[in-house]
């Protein structure tokens, strides 16, 4: 009997550990990107804070938040666990990148809220949302829309955001009032919509690109349907939408056409939204390569092997393309030749390790030649791509 009980207990512990492993992996962590506005960096942290960081104050080593435009706003959500007793709240997960709307900052959270934040009110530490400062939360009540993964986009006086409930929400910039809600477009929308003139374009997991009227959210007549779902956010260049799909292809779709202009096959998904400049698409792939393709015909101009999955969209800095891999390596790639140089760790104790010793899944930005990257270790890193060196590591917790 003892043997049986021991066996039972050991098996149960094994099962419990495995289950808890599954549970922790299922918990959304968030990978909010960094954006810059007026010399200040805005981002969401892993522990659910929206933060304003002044690079100059960080370089001076001032305590955070300094009086130089820095603040942090913790966003929490009531705990929904059936096993928790009493009232408790947990930090939200943030996936989208904050967007500057005039002097304000807008972002969506995984808890299903859209927030408009006034940096000036945050500097004064006023209660959030401070309506007189133009701040708002949508929905205003305890209700939520589906989890928001993509970033908001601005169309005239409207904010558009995609939600996991499969709808696009259009909100008034000034008060956060609902202007329209689209019909359900798919199972869940985890992407950032793209806007051209008065039309909002949305790609879905079930393989559609929808065109919506920015005025009232009505579906326009053109719909593109692919055999497989789209995984990356769409990018619009001239009249063509570029988007990565689950069949490992990058699609170029001319607006109004029913067939793709071209398709390009990678060795894994094109998860990151591509970058398009001067007739060339630069697409980072989970196969660890960046492909430069001609926008007209999809002809491969060059490819650069970064040696690690590319989850974050590359960015253009001067005449170079900055590529960051998920394992934490940073490369500066020549736009014309496709030859790249990895930025190495100058610290002897870190030799052989990636430049940033943490996973990188979020979008990053550049101020002059300095690239700012938020990693999954909840730190903000700055990398000088001109000098090819890691400048700063700033813990966000």
């Amino acid at each position, binding site marked *: *009997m003892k*043997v*049986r*009980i021991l*066996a*039972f207990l050991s*098996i149960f512990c*094994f*099962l419990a550990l*495995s*289950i808890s492993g*599954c*549970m922790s*992996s*299922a*918990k*959304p*962590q968030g*990978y909010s990107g960094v954006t810059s506005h007026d010399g200040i960096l805005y981002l969401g942290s892993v522990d659910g804070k929206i933060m304003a960081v002044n690079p100059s104050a960080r370089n001076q080593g001032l305590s955070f938040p300094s009086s130089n435009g820095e603040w942090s706003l913790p966003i929490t959500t009531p705990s929904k*666990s*059936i*096993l928790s007793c009493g009232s408790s709240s947990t930090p939200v997960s943030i*996936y989208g990148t904050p967007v500057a709307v005039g002097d304000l900052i807008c972002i969506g959270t995984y808890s299903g809220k859209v927030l408009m934040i006034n940096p000036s009110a945050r500097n004064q530490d006023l209660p959030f949302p401070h309506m007189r400062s133009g701040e708002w939360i949508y929905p205003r009540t305890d209700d939520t829309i589906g989890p928001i*993964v993509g970033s908001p986009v601005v169309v005239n006086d409207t904010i558009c955001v995609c939600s996991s409930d499969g709808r696009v929400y259009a909100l008034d910039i000034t008060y956060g009032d609902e202007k329209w809600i689209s019909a359900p477009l798919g*199972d*869940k929308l*985890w992407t950032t919509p793209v806007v051209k003139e008065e039309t909002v374009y949305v790609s879905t*997991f*079930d393989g559609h690109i929808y065109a919506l009227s920015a005025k009232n959210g009505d579906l326009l007549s053109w719909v593109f349907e692919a*055999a*497989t*779902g789209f*995984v990356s956010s769409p990018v619009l260049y001239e009249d063509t939408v570029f988007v990565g799909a*689950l*069949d*490992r292809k990058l699609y170029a779709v001319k607006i109004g056409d029913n067939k793709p202009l071209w398709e390009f096959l990678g*060795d*894994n*998904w094109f*998860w990151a939204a591509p970058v398009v400049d001067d007739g060339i698409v630069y697409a980072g792939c*989970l196969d660890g390569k960046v492909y430069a393709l001609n926008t007209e015909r999809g002809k491969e101009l060059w490819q650069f092997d970064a040696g690690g999955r590319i*989850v974050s969209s590359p960015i253009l800095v001067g005449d170079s393309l900055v590529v960051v891999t998920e394992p934490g390596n940073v490369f500066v790639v020549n736009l014309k030749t496709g030859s790249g140089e990895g930025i190495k760790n100058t610290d002897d104790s870190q030799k052989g390790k990636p430049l940033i010793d943490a996973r990188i*899944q979020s979008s990053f930005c550049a101020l002059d030649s300095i690239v700012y990257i938020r990693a999954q270790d909840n730190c903000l890193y700055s990398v000088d791509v001109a000098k090819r060196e890691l400048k700063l590591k700033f813990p966000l917790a």
Partner: protein
Amino acid sequence: MADLWSLIILDPMINGMLALSSVLPRETQFGLAIIILTVVVRLLSTPLVLRQLKSTKAMQDMQPKLQEMQKKYGKNKQKLQQEMMKVYKEAGVNPVGCMWPMLVQFPIWIALYQSIMKALATTPENLLDLSRHLYAWETVNQAIPVNNHFLWLNLGQPDHTMILAILVGGTMWLQQKMTTAPSIDPKQQSTSKMMLFMMPLMFGMFTLMFPSGLPLFWLASNVIGIATQYFVTGGWGYLKPPSSAHSLLVRGR
């Protein structure tokens, strides 16, 4: 080690499940794939299960004899052990033999529920992680994202209606009840009783916490387990004591 686990067990299971779901009707796609794969895994492990059931039954049949020995040699532990081993040897039963088939099956079950969780890809990180495990098969890539809806369930969300929790807990209790022999020893009886209720209760609670895809797999597994027990041991086993169980005990004496 993690890479080896993925390469040999997890990846084939995830891709198999997705390939299977791509040929099923879209409305019930993933729910049916979970059930079918559970049945397939159960069928593949039938020889092990049969061995385990036979060993368990043999052990249960020997219980009255062993209890008698305990009474007889209760104070002399060494003698008791020797006599017990002798009885085991005579009956051709290995006392831990009923556990090995169970332990061998365990990694398969863990891989199965890991693949369910991964294929469901309930968060963006999960979807990103899923890309590591997929083969370059067109059918697999076209099956993503899987349809989370099955009957009243959203397989990516916990079922708060309690229906699934009751079904999981109920079937687990039933399966255990069918195999747990009533004991004469009051101590053993209370332990068995506790086990009989603890596991279903815990799994019922887990059902309320986990995405429904996982409890659906538990439910399918329990139902198949009950059916196997029914047909292998020939009936409802110890579900209908006291007469049948008692007769078993008496027969053992």
